[in-house]
């Protein structure tokens, strides 16, 4: 997508001071409301509705709640005609084996709301689906009148413009939402962990993204196609092989013959991953057999298989087991490599901060053992290569030459980075950098003396912080009355659509206290989504 590069620039180039966007506390609401029209001040009292939309899932609820009211999956049952109750009569489609093996891409298509490849997409169909899922969510779960209160959408930071436009015009023309705020899901995930800077690893459906966030700004994003979708396809192939009785390992091109729902159940229940790479020594529990419903007849039969085999698809897909690193294309790096590369492309200061605040979100983060494994693998990469992108034999030769010279290499290679990172390989004798006291320069020492009371941020070690997820983050941020950068007013959007958004990156940050309302803003921006 060509928007990628400009997107990141606009994120970083946002000329705001290092200050949280100005808030409006509830107490200050009264003075503020007097300047607004009565209608909108009435709306201010209404809790905003928060939606998080992804390819497979939708979460919806009210601001200020910790968990969404409802979580909905997309699937073929959602696209049936009204009064077509087949799903209830025959059981959910995709539970049993398929009549005819399917191509892995067609196999998942019905279960996705949209694909990021829009060449074949029918935007009208997507609009229909969006309309229906929103209407049903309001009627069944939110139990509030649609369109009366503000809407906050938590979206992935990269949305194709046609999709974004379809989504917004469907919502604005179907209901009378006064405004729609867009929030980036990665930043919200960081906020929901109590963090200002983080490396958010989103193991999502279509792709895995690793986003470096520094002071609530997305600094760098890298993505990989190794995601839950490919995991599901791999598991589908594995189960298809199990059904047909073939034991061959290489199943990469085969069509899938088991039902999607069945496969998804298996993945959500039993997909796992060993926390340590290459742990081949037989641990007693992993060698146990477990019984899962048989892929041939899931309703009535069970089949036994070793528990360890259920970890194979995870390792193969997410960790690219059995594939050399140099054979991987740029967009299909394994998850540890993705995390490492993202950290590597961050500036050292941000890297030190972000690596101690790694947040895993998305469906894949539920797979037991996965997060630990990623961290362990990243640690190994750091130990092996340090923070240098240079690889190869020449490096090794140079390292040997340096060792021969031995001019107090320890001191020389000590980087001024706060985390005490080392150039690779000459630290065999050194202790673990995380346990070592970081060297302080005199400025740092002075600052610390001045601020004895304040805690020193954890830096430079790999550490995982748990987040409540993007939905909770959006709910949190909205309930604190923090204005989003992208707040799209109904009237403005209906005039010009997405084209009305200003490209002017020098937009002043919205300020709530100066009495300016959003309506007084003459222009609006798409910020990161532009």
């Amino acid at each position, binding site marked *: 997508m060509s928007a990628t590069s400009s997107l990141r620039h606009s994120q970083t180039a946002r000329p705001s001071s290092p200050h949280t966007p100005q808030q409006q506390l509830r107490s200050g609401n009264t003075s503020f409301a007097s300047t607004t029209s009565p209608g909108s001040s009435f709306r201010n009292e209404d809790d905003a509705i928060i939606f998080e939309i992804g390819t497979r899932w939708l979460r919806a609820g009210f601001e200020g709640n910790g*968990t969404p009211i409802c979580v909905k999956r997309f699937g073929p049952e959602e696209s049936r005609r*009204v009064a077509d109750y087949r799903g209830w009569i025959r059981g959910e489609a995709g539970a049993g084996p398929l009549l005819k093996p399917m191509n892995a891409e067609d196999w998942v298509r019905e279960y996705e709301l949209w694909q990021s490849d829009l060449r074949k997409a029918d935007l009208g169909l997507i609009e229909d689906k969006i309309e229906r899922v929103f209407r049903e969510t309001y*009627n069944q779960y939110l139990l509030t009148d649609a369109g009366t209160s503000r809407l906050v959408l938590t979206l992935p930071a990269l949305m194709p413009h046609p999709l974004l436009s379809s989504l917004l015009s469907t919502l604005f023309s179907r209901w009378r939402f006064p405004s729609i705020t867009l929030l980036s899901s990665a930043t919200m995930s960081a906020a929901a962990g109590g963090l200002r800077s983080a490396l958010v690893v989103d193991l999502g459906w279509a792709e895995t993204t690793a986003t470096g966030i520094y002071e609530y700004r997305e600094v760098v994003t890298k993505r990989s196609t190794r995601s839950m979708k490919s995991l599901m396809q791999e598991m589908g192939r594995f189960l298809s092989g199990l059904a047909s009785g073939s034991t061959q390992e290489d199943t990469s091109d085969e069509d899938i013959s088991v039902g999607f729902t069945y496969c998804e159940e298996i993945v959500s229940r039993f997909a796992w991953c060993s926390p340590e790479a290459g742990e081949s020594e037989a641990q007693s529990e992993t060698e146990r057999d477990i019984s899962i419903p048989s892929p041939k007849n899931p309703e009535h039969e069970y089949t036994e298989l070793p528990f360890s085999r259920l970890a194979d698809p995870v390792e193969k897909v997410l960790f690219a087991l059995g594939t050399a690193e140099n054979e991987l294309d740029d967009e299909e790096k394994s998850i540890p490599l993705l995390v490492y590369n993202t950290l590597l492309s961050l500036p050292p200061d941000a890297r030190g901060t972000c690596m101690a605040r790694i947040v895993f979100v998305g469906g894949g983060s539920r797979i037991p053992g996965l997060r630990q494994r990623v961290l362990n693998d990243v640690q190994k990469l750091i130990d092996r290569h340090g923070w240098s992108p240079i690889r190869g034999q020449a490096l090794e030769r140079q390292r040997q030459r340096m060792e021969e010279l031995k001019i107090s290499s320890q001191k020389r290679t000590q980087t001024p980075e706060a985390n005490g990172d080392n150039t690779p390989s000459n630290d065999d004798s050194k202790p673990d950098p995380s346990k070592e006291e970081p060297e302080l320069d005199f400025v740092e020492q002075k600052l610390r003396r001045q601020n004895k009371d304040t805690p020193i941020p954890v830096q430079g070690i790999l550490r*995982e912080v748990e987040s409540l997820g993007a939905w909770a983050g959006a709910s949190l941020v909205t309930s*604190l009355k923090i204005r989003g950068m992208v707040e799209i007013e109904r009237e403005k959007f209906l005039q010009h659509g997405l084209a009305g958004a200003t490209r002017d990156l020098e937009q002043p940050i919205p300020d709530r206290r100066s009495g300016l309302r959003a309506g007084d803003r003459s222009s609006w921006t798409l910020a990161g989504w532009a």
Partner: protein
Amino acid sequence: MSRPFPYTYVSCPCANTPVPDPAKKRRSRDSPQKPTPERTDPDDKDNKKQPENTPEEEVDEEEEEQTFDPRSPRSNFSLYPPEQLLYCEDCHQIKCPRCITEEIVSWYCPNCLFETPSSMVKGDANRCGRNCFNCPVCTSPLSVSTIENVAGKGNGQGPWVLSCAYCLWTTLDIGIKFDKPTNIRNQLQKMTDSTSAPTFDTRSRQGSRAFSDLKSPLSNLASFDEPVSTPTGSGEQVKENETDSPPLGVEARFAALKNFYRNQISETSTSPNDPLGSDLGFSSPGALNRLMSLYASSSRLGGLYGGNKKQKSKPPVMREAINASEGLRIAPENADAAIIERLSSPDCGWDGVASLSQRAEQSPDVRFVDDLLPLPVLLRTKRAKRCKSCKHILVKPETKPQSTRFRIRLIALSYIPLPSLRPLALPTSSLIPAPAPDLNALPPLRPVHVLLTLKNHMFDPVRITLATPSVTPGRVASKVTILSPQFDIGPNSDVWDEALQGASAPVTTDPRAGGLRAAEKVPEAGKVWDKGRNWTTVVLEVIPGTLPGSEADAGKEGIDEDEIAVAAQQDEDVLEIPVFVHMEWDAEAQLEQQNVGKASKPDDLVARELAYWMVLGVGRITAAL
């Protein structure tokens, strides 16, 4: 399709209105309007509102030419059973759930039928606040019973549990008992609200202790001026806190985070009487200073300027959460090992792990069946419905949950003719009437006659024109002919009129047919099959096509059973006929809407017309000839 054959669907005309992309037509500022294709009404009010919808209509007329395809994935979203549609008397249009707006009249619990006041709905998280619960395993309703009852003795005393009559799950399975049989929701909430995130070994839900732990920061936070007061100095302090307090539940963590942020914001915000405080951007020396000093230091975190009294212009910078009471949660080492161990252990098994549908309504951390909590019943609403374009009210139910009556209900069937379909058994030989063809197994290439009856519910006679593509769209091409596409339907006059008109048989256009027995009638082109007071029946001749891969498919040897099975799964073998209905009638002018049907001057009559697609589901085609 899951509805039994034969069935009929009506496509709401709003499907032809694409969602306007404002970027494309910058002029039109209004919300999309239902296409009113052949509207001739002089007194239409909508046209006043929308002087500039001409471009839209052009677009619509183009699309009107296209044949409606019941197989396109989009048609699933516009087809409705006729009885589910509404009709707006102002716009003179069919209204489907997509072209109405809804307003909630009342909230009630479908289990106990108690109405929930609107002020309490949100507080109860849209769920019943009483004793109504659904089983988390099988979703059937739970009942409150004593433990003795469950055990079989039963003296009506003692601790109470929720038990499922269907799958025999009780709250004892998750170690929950209630002291009294009332107000279960509150009791449950106290027990579970802030319990630690699902733990695998604890059966004892010692949540209340954790809850009070949590509550104290919440209540303290009003005076929580120095949240940084924890003894510290080293970056290690995070870990101390972690060990002594149990991990918070999701809601508790959220509350802690919210309080933390709220504190930070009030601490770091500049005084409100300085309106220029943060508005100056880079031109302000203060902001510049702040930036410069930020770059000068290698540590980015807040608190750098926290207690700095020398430079008053510098506002303090927000920091991040640093301990568990502020909502931070460091992932514990090897937390997943226990999960993996438990997953693989024989006493867990497939049924020990919660399924996707079981987890959908639970807290996001839930993984095992033991973590599932009883679900309070989701409330339902009674909703009034309005036309989206003219705000005319279409449906208004009575507020009481027990009442099934409506104050206003404009259903479409009072306006559009009710279509119904039945197969016609043609007399094959002379004597024995042939059995009606089995609609679930229509042989390909063999003509079937179907009777389509349209029943008028209006008090005006209606002229109907039907149209259908001669070959149905899709891979299975069936030929369809409507033998008499133009006909009239009588008014829905008083039933007694008909009876008083004399003992003569129902009015028929065909005098010959009246004398003959129905079984001997032969469908004839251009002739209406049968006609009654307010209904007319016409004959459709259908020649079902051949399924791809079947024997009858030209140029194929043998039967490709797989392909037939796939076709059956995708409903390709269902014979569905799109029929375009165009109806015209002379309605009375709007003012006398109430007494339609009474005699009035013909000058008041207004010609109206309505056009829509409907889909007739005839049956399933078999593969074999």
